[in-house]
Each structure stands twice: as C-alpha cells, then as structure tokens.
C-alpha cells in the first residue's frame, strides 16, 4: 500500500514569508508526528497527534510554528514569518496506534525547506 507522502518535496522561500507543509499519513494510522532535521543533525520532535486527542505541541520551537490535523487524515505544518534558521528537512511520520510500546514509525520522504 501507499506510504507516508509529503509535499512539496522542496520549498525555497524568502525570509518573512509563510509556508505550509503537507503530510498524508498511511491510511488507518492514528498517530502522526512532525520532526525537524537540520543538516547533519538528528531529528528534533516538533508535534504529535493521536486521533482526536489534543496534540502534544511541546516540541514546537516558537509561536511561528503551528500544525493541524483533521481527524486521522492529512496534517499541515505552517511556519509563519520564516527565518533563515528554519531551513531544514521537515519529516512526517505515522504509526498504527497510540503509544510507542510496540510501534514503529513510518516516515515520509521529507520536505526540504530553504529560507533565503
């Protein structure tokens, strides 16, 4: 079946502009995660959605970052007034159900964001 998809694959924007990144999780997966990965570094947790529960936003670096998810489907990560330090690959992952106990995450290919 189809994996996690993300769009766009690459985004170049000017400093100060808003960007929207999209993630389509695997159908039936109730959990969805967003991560940020700067060049040569590890993954930085941003936000986690689980079904209709309130999302865990504890990883969002500033109020310029927000994310939404409608039910158990598509999610959108929005970055307002982009800064050069926002340049990174933004990765989305989904997993079958809540909890990490036996779950693996399935990752999308990422969106490479470049802020000029």
């Amino acid at each position, binding site marked *: 079946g189809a994996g996690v998809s993300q769009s766009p694959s690459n985004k170049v924007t000017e400093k100060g502009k808003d960007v929207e990144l999209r993630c389509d999780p695997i159908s039936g997966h109730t959990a969805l*995660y967003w991560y940020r990965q700067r060049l040569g*570094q*590890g*993954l930085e*947790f941003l936000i986690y959605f689980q079904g209709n529960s309130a999302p865990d936003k504890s990883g969002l670096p500033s109020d310029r970052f927000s994310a939404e998810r409608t039910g158990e489907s598509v999610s959108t990560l929005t970055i307002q007034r982009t800064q050069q330090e926002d340049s990174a690959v933004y990765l989305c*992952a989904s997993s079958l159900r809540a909890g*990490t106990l*036996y779950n693996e*995450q399935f990752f*999308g290919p990422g969106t490479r964001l470049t802020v000029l």
Partner: protein
Amino acid sequence: SQQGEEDPQALSIQEGENATMNCSYKTSINNLQWYRQNSGRGLVHLILIRSNEREKHSGRLRVTLDTSKKSSSLLITASRAADTASYFCATDGTGFNKFYFGSGTKLNVKP
C-alpha cells in the same frame, strides 16, 4: 534530555567487515528502536527492542540492550556498500507517545 546519543559519529569500513554502533540514553525507556536514513531523507525502521529484552536479531542485524548501563548497540555483519547510511537510535522515555532521536552515526562502507 532523554535523547539517545550515538557513538561513533562517523564510521568507515571495508565491505565485508562488521560495523558496530552504540547508543546511550539518559532515562528509563519502554523500548528502543534503530532507524536508517539514506541521503538525508525519510527514515526506515530497522528493529525494535523492548526494555525486557537483551538481544534481538534481524537478518544481518544484531541489537543488544543493557538497561543497567542505559546503552544499546547495533551490529551489522558482513557489511555491504548498500549499508552506507546514517543510523539513529530512538528512545521513548516513559511517556509512551514521543520518540527521542540521537544525532546518528554516519556509516560509510567502501566497496
């Protein structure tokens, strides 16, 4: 921070040799997972080991977990050029819902 930290940061070996990567973490965990990343894009899940397990095998992969030392190792036997990638460990702390990734080990397997 609950993040796992991989060691070494970079590893270069010849095809056919074994590659060993280590991961250390700071807090109690429910499970630890290893992922591989090619070309700085999406990660692929390799193996999960639960906190009550000490060793697990999957093909050419062998993972060990020592909860008393808060460490794990990933061994890739008979490495191939196609194993060239970055390898990350991910821990979940005790919160069940979030994963914490280390900064990865960059493995280069020379043909």
